[in-house]
C-alpha cells in the first residue's frame, strides 16, 4: 500500500491529522484512529511450565516467541502507530494484562526455569513488556513526538492502559532493579491523571479486606468484621492454621507473602501513596492483623507435621511477610508524619500528635511493637522528634518508651543492646 503521511511537526499527536491510502483513494484521518491499527493478533502470555517436559517447554517457547516478536515490532513502531495500536488493539491489552497477572514473581516457588532456553526467552519478554509499559507511561517521547498532557491522562485512564492493580503488578515485577524509572512512570501517571488517586482511595479498603479475609481463613476475626456476633450452635468449628489442610495453609501463606511484598514495593517506589493508605487507618489495621495472625501462623508452622521443604519455605515466607509489614509501617510513618515534621511543615504540631497517637494505638499490639522496635528502634524516632519539635511532651514520650520495653518483656524476647537504648 502506498502511504502518504502528512503529519505536522511540533503538533501533539492528539491534534494531528494524517492523509494516507493508495494513490487516488487517499483519506484524511485523525492520527489516533482505530482504522490505523494493524490487525496483529497478540497472543496472551502463559507462564513457563512448572515441569520441564519437552512438549511443554516447546509450547511455551513457541507462544513466547510470537509475543516477543510482536512486542519488538510494537516497540519499533513510530510514535503515532504505537499509540494507535496501544489504544485500539484489544489483543495487545490482553497480552500485557496476562503478563502482569501470570508472570512469575521473584518470590514465587521456583521462579527460574531449569531450561536455559525458557529462562532466556522469559528474560527477553520481561524486558520488552517493561519497555512497552514505559512507553505507554511517557507522554513526551521527543520534541516532535508527544501527546497533550491532559489528553494523555484521559487516554491512559479511559482505556484502562493503567489501573491500580496493574501499577501494583508493575512495581512488584520490575521495581526492585528499576526503582527510579518506575517512580518516574508512576509519578507521571498520577500527575497527568489525578483520578488515579481517587482509584487508590477506593482500593485501600479492598486491600484491608484482603487482610480481613486472611484473618477469617485463620479462624480469627478482626473487630470490624463482627466478632461479637453470636455463633450458631450447629456451626462447624472454624478451621485454624493448626487444623486446615496443608494446601490451604500453603495458599494462605503465599497470599500473605504476595500481599505484603506487593504493598511494600508500591509504597517504597511511590511514597506519595502513603497518605492515602494512612487516611484509611491502615496502620492500625495492619498492626492488629500482625498481632492476631503472625503468632498463629508461626505456631502452626513449627508444631505441625508436614513436608520439610514446604515447611521451611513457608516459615521463610512468614518471616519475609513480617519484615515487610514492619517496613510498610515504617514507610507510612516516615512519609506521613516524620518527614513533614523534619521538613518544618507549618502543621508540625498536628503531625507530632498523629505520630504519638499512632504509636499509642500500637501499645496493645505487643508482639508487633517489639518486632517494629527491633527493626526500627522507636527511641531513634522519638529522639528525632525531640530535636525537631522541642515542645514535645516528655511524659508521653517516656510512657511510650516504657511501653516498648514492656512489650519486649511480655513476649519474652531479649532486646539487643543498641547505642540508643544504652543511652
Amino acid at each position, binding site marked *: 500500500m502506498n502511504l502518504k503521511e502528512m503529519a505536522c511537526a511540533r503538533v501533539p499527536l492528539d491534534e494531528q491529522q494524517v492523509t494516507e491510502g493508495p494513490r487516488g483513494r487517499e483519506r484524511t484521518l485523525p492520527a489516533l484512529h482505530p482504522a490505523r491499527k494493524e490487525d*496483529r*493478533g*497478540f*497472543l*496472551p502470555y502463559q*507462564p513457563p511450565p512448572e515441569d520441564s517436559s519437552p512438549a511443554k517447554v516447546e*509450547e511455551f517457547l*513457541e507462544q513466547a*516467541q*510470537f509475543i516477543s516478536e510482536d512486542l*519488538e515490532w510494537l*516497540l*519499533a513502531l*513510530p510514535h503515532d502507530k504505537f499509540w494507535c495500536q496501544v489504544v485500539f488493539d484489544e489483543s495487545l491489552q*490482553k497480552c500485557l494484562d496476562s503478563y502482569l*497477572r501470570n508472570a512469575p*514473581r*521473584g*518470590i*514465587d516457588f521456583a*521462579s527460574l526455569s531449569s531450561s536455559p532456553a525458557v529462562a532466556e526467552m522469559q528474560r527477553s519478554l*520481561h*524486558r520488552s513488556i*517493561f*519497555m512497552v509499559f*514505559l512507553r505507554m507511561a511517557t507522554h513526551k517521547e521527543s520534541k516532535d513526538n508527544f501527546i497533550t498532557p491532559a489528553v494523555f491522562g484521559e487516554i491512559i485512564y479511559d482505556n*484502562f492502559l493503567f*489501573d*491500580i*492493580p*496493574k501499577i*501494583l503488578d508493575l512495581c512488584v515485577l520490575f521495581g*526492585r*532493579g*528499576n526503582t527510579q*524509572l518506575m517512580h518516574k512512570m508512576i509519578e507521571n501517571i498520577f500527575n497527568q491523571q489525578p483520578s488515579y488517586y481517587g*482509584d487508590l482511595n*477506593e*482500593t485501600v479498603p*479492598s*486491600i484491608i479486606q*484482603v487482610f480481613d*479475609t486472611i484473618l477469617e481463613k485463620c479462624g480469627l476475626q478482626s473487630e470490624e468484621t463482627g466478632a461479637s456476633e453470636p455463633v450458631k450452635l450447629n456451626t462447624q468449628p472454624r478451621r485454624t492454621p493448626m487444623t486446615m489442610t496443608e494446601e490451604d495453609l500453603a*495458599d494462605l501463606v*503465599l*497470599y500473605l507473602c504476595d500481599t505484603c511484598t506487593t*504493598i511494600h*514495593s508500591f509504597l517504597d517506589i511511590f511514597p506519595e501513596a502513603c497518605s492515602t493508605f494512612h487516611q484509611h487507618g491502615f496502620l492500625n489495621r495492619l498492626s492488629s492483623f500482625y498481632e492476631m495472625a503472625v503468632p498463629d501462623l508461626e505456631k502452626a508452622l*513449627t*508444631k*505441625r*507435621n508436614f513436608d520439610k521443604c514446604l*515447611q*521451611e519455605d513457608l*516459615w*521463610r*515466607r512468614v*518471616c*519475609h511477610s513480617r*519484615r515487610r509489614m514492619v517496613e510498610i509501617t515504617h514507610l507510612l510513618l516516615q512519609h506521613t508524619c516524620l518527614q513533614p515534621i523534619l521538613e518544618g511543615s507549618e502543621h508540625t504540631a498536628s503531625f507530632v500528635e498523629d505520630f504519638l497517637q499512632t504509636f499509642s494505638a500500637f501499645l496493645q499490639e505487643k508482639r508487633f511493637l517489639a518486632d517494629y522496635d527491633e527493626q526500627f528502634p522507636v527511641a531513634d524516632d522519638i529522639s528525632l522528634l525531640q530535636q525537631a519539635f522541642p515542645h514535645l511532651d516528655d511524659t508521653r514520650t517516656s510512657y511510650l518508651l516504657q511501653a516498648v520495653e514492656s512489650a519486649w518483656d511480655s513476649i519474652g524476647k531479649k532486646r539487643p543492646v543498641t547505642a540508643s537504648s544504652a543511652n
Partner: protein
Amino acid sequence: MSPPRLTGALRSFSTVSKQEDFTLELYDLKAKRLKRQELFAREGLTWPKVVQLFTQHQEKKEQQSASQELKNILQAAKQIVGTEFGQDTIESAAVYLFKTFHNKDQVGHEETRAIKQMFGPFPASAAEASCVAVGQLVALLGESHVEAFIQTQSSCKTVDQGATFGRNITFSFDSYVLDTQDALPWEEEQGEGQSLDF
C-alpha cells in the same frame, strides 16, 4: 496455576479495573499462525514472480530443470501446510520456504523453528526437499542475483533496531526475592539439643 495474589483479589473485588469481557475470543497458536501467514502473504513477493524469475531468460534445458525444482517446492509446501488449504495458501508457503532457504545449505535449528512457528508441526522430509530444491534453483542464477530480487520484491521493511523504543535504556533484571536471613526455629532448637516432634 498462578499462586493467589493481592492484585488478583483487587481485580475481582474492586471497581477500578476494566471488567473482563469473556465473550472476546483470544488468539490461540493456530489462529496466530494463520494471521502470520496472512501478513506474510501481503509482504509483496508472490509465487508467480518467483516462477517468472527462474523461467524467463533461461535456456530450454535450464527452464525444464527450474520448473521441476519449482514443482518440488510447491509439493513440499503442500505437505507442510496440509491438504485442506487452497492454492493461494500453498503458494504463499512455497514463497516462505524459498525465502527461508535461499541462502542456506541445510535445514538448521533456526529454519526448523521458523517453519514450525509459521505452519505448526511439519514433516522434516518436506523441509529437506524444499531446501534442496531452493538450493538447485539459486545455483542457476547465483545467490547475489536472487538476494537482490528478494530485496526488491519485499515491501516488508526490516525493523530499524536503532529506532526501537528503549534500545538505549538500561534495564535491570533484579527482582524482589524472599529474605533468606531467617534461621529456622527448629534448627535453633536442634542446636540447643532439644528434640522435635515433627
